[in-house]
């Protein structure tokens, strides 16, 4: 099948589901990496209609969720400075820091603004040279080209009042970190389609070969996910471990090389701490030495931050896929999207918020229901 045909085509969805049921003979654990995929799976109840024993494990693919607490605290510390205009994607504003969040600071008078693109932050810096404009550069490989271009552009324009607070994460090292865990039960991955639109999938080929794990580059729509699941199970059932591309309409093997060039120019690979998961070597991007002047963390010297994670939140287990939100005693009671205790409840791509928005309750036994609807 070249293109999935129609989102609301129940017949096609049903066919894919039948094929999944027909090829599955053993229990398998598939991890979807992207938070957008988690959202679709949970919202559409895809995990509920898979064969018994075919389990979807929700991975750490929500950029809002994995941004370390320390970076949120740094963002808050910078945002409270009177000379600073702090800009961010909207979904970072409600992420709880140790003591506050950006939205609360804004309500108390800090100059915090939501932007759709880092280029808007560049424009603000250009229009008002009296303000120190800082952009919170978070995300996976999908947002890295945008943040790289913002810095390149700021240099071209000679801006001295623009900087970025960098908290970039990379998917492949997170996958190998999960696979290296002794208790890892993941048999195959659905890789994030849009990450691969930027990076291609060459980086995933050695992982598939070395760990003998199928990796299927998959889109985020319901039919994409059904097809990605089918491709992964087919590989598992026939003993193959390859990188396959379900998302051919948007992803090429080499990705977008123009975007990769910009990333390589502006950033360097560095170790990165993932919120709830811990440090993963080589799993993040930092500004390259040549662009260090644009580093907000240097410009505003915000070291010595002591972080305080809410002890009740089990986000680490959620992000590693070892626990479900419904296993958390705070879920839906003390912790809701309106007043989140942990980051996975903030963004719609977070597993806890996806569960809550789909109305999942603790009694449900997702992923083991064999019936088809």
């Amino acid at each position, binding site marked *: 099948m070249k293109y999935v045909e129609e989102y609301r085509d129940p017949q096609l969805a049903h066919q894919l589901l039948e094929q999944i049921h027909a090829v599955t003979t053993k229990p398998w654990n598939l991890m979807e990496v992207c938070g957008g995929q988690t959202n679709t799976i949970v919202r559409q109840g895809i995990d509920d209609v898979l064969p018994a024993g075919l389990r979807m494990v929700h991975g750490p693919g929500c950029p809002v969720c994995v941004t370390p607490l320390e970076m949120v605290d740094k963002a808050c510390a910078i945002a409270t400075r009177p000379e600073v205009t702090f800009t961010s*994607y909207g979904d970072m504003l409600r992420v709880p820091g140790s003591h506050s969040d950006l939205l609360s600071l804004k309500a108390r008078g800090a100059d915090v603004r939501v932007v*759709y*693109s880092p280029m808007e932050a560049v424009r603000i810096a250009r229009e008002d040279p009296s303000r120190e404009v800082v952009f919170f550069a978070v995300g996976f490989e*999908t947002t890295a080209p945008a943040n790289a271009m913002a810095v390149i552009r700021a240099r071209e324009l000679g801006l001295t009042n623009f900087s970025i607070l960098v908290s970039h994460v990379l998917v492949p090292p997170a996958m190998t970190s999960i696979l290296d865990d002794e208790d890892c039960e993941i048999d195959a991955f659905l890789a994030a389609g849009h990450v691969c639109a930027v990076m291609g999938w060459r980086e995933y080929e050695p992982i598939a070969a070395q760990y003998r794990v199928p990796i299927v580059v998959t889109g985020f729509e319901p039919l994409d996910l059904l097809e990605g699941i089918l491709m992964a199970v087919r590989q598992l059932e026939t003993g193959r471990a390859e990188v396959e591309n379900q998302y051919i309409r*948007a992803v090429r093997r080499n990705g977008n090389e123009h975007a990769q060039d910009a990333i390589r120019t502006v950033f360097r690979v560095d170790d990165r701490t993932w919120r709830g998961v811990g440090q993963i070597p080589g799993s993040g991007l930092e500004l390259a030495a040549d662009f260090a002047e644009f580093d907000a963390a240097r410009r505003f010297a915000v070291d010595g931050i002591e972080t305080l994670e809410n002890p009740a939140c089990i986000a680490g287990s959620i992000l590693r896929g070892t626990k479900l939100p419904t296993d958390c005693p705070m879920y839906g009671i003390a912790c809701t999207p309106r007043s989140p205790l942990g980051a996975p409840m903030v963004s*719609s791509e977070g597993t806890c918020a996806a569960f809550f928005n789909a109305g999942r309750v603790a009694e449900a036994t997702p992923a083991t229901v064999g019936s088809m609807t």
Partner: protein
Amino acid sequence: MCLGIPGRVTSVVDDAGLRTGVVDFGGVRREVCLAYVPDAAVGDYVVVHVGFAISRLDEDVALRTLEIIAAMPGAMEQELGPAGNSGAPIGGAA
């Protein structure tokens, strides 16, 4: 920030050395950086992440994807940012 909305390029301009254009997302227009898709022209469909086109799409695929995103509550707003900041020039030649 991760769904990536497809939209149609309605204009392309050289904004002081930066390839920029206006992209229409089912009626909502935003200024988008086209530097990473140098071959995308007016009328082409592109996938846009945080104000940057990162790949091209066929029209039928793009329209269907747009329909799906529109059907997800809140997804458009989350991907496109709050209404009202459209069309603002991006670091353009003043």
